[in-house]
């Protein structure tokens, strides 16, 4: 299966707002920890190692 990179979010603006809202009142360390838990939860939801590896590569592409 291919990683979905075309628009797929039901409600992009609502999601983005909820994402930022979830981090409210957290310091940096707590936010990083939240993000890590979020990645793990989403990864489990996806399940497929192949898709996850595509996502890891796509994300890495934005870094050096």
């Amino acid at each position, binding site marked *: 299966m291919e990683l979905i990179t075309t628009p797929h979010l039901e409600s992009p603006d609502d999601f983005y707002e909820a994402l930022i809202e979830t981090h409210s009142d957290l310091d940096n360390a707590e936010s*990083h*920890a939240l993000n*890590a*838990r979020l*990645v*793990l*939860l989403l990864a*489990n939801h996806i399940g497929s190692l192949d898709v996850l590896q595509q996502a890891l590569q796509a994300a890495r592409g934005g870094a050096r």
Partner: protein
Amino acid sequence: MKRRKPENIIPRVKALLAHSTMKDAEFELEWASVYTFACLRMDRFRHGRVIFAGDSAHGVSPFGARGANSGVQDAENLAWKLAAVVAGEAPDALLDSYADEREYAADENIRNSTRATDFITPKSEISCLFRDAVLELSKTQLFARTLVNSGRLSVPATLHGSTLNTPDAESFAGRMVPGAAASDAPITRPDGSAGWLLRELGTGFTALITEGSESEALARSIQVLDGLGTPVKVLRLRIGPRHRRYRPHRQRRRADAALRPAPWQRLPVPPRPARLRTLAQADRRPGQERRQARLGHRLKESRSWN
């Protein structure tokens, strides 16, 4: 080293004991050192007439009971090969297969051991962050518990690339591929009594033949091998309907019991008594039935040529 000082160690030990049933236990510090994990192996386990096994060949961290297990597996892999070569029944090259197979298995052990080590002692801040996230989630989320890696139990390596394997003529799914340790399965003997497959295997080569149109011809061709000085026990199996749902939970016995189709095809002189079991596929069943054939067997006939 600061950490070796008794005044640093004793409070830590007391703190650990305080959370256990031994919280009031008295103890004395006998000896203190700093243990660091190390995973390493020799490039080659065979150097001519010198053969390396166990800790002399590879070292792993202690998670998963891999050090002692792999040492015993090295010895078991080597024993029958060395015996065959010393007795002049197999070429010297058979010993190279020991090195190839056990180097591969050592890599697998080291890979698993390193993963556990990295979980237990994260090497970077981000690694620590994810480890802690896993531990936090595992309190409430079942999926996260599968990521908690305090050492995976050692299981026999499947020797996919072994030089003793010959290619599969047909593709079949499942774990019983060439190079895999033989799994046990319940069987019914010709007299109707119940038994287990692994106990029916001989101490030398065993050919498992599933019943089919070509099984007679295959059994005859194995007799030819016997004439060349390789005793082969032949087990002919029929699938039993009552076994179709049977799934072995895990491999019960390793031995050096890799499934290898006809290794003698590769060896100019066949090795003789060997704890090597050979799976010979006689018929041309589709993959699905074939897998069932490996999980549940009905033993139709057992013969031994010696």
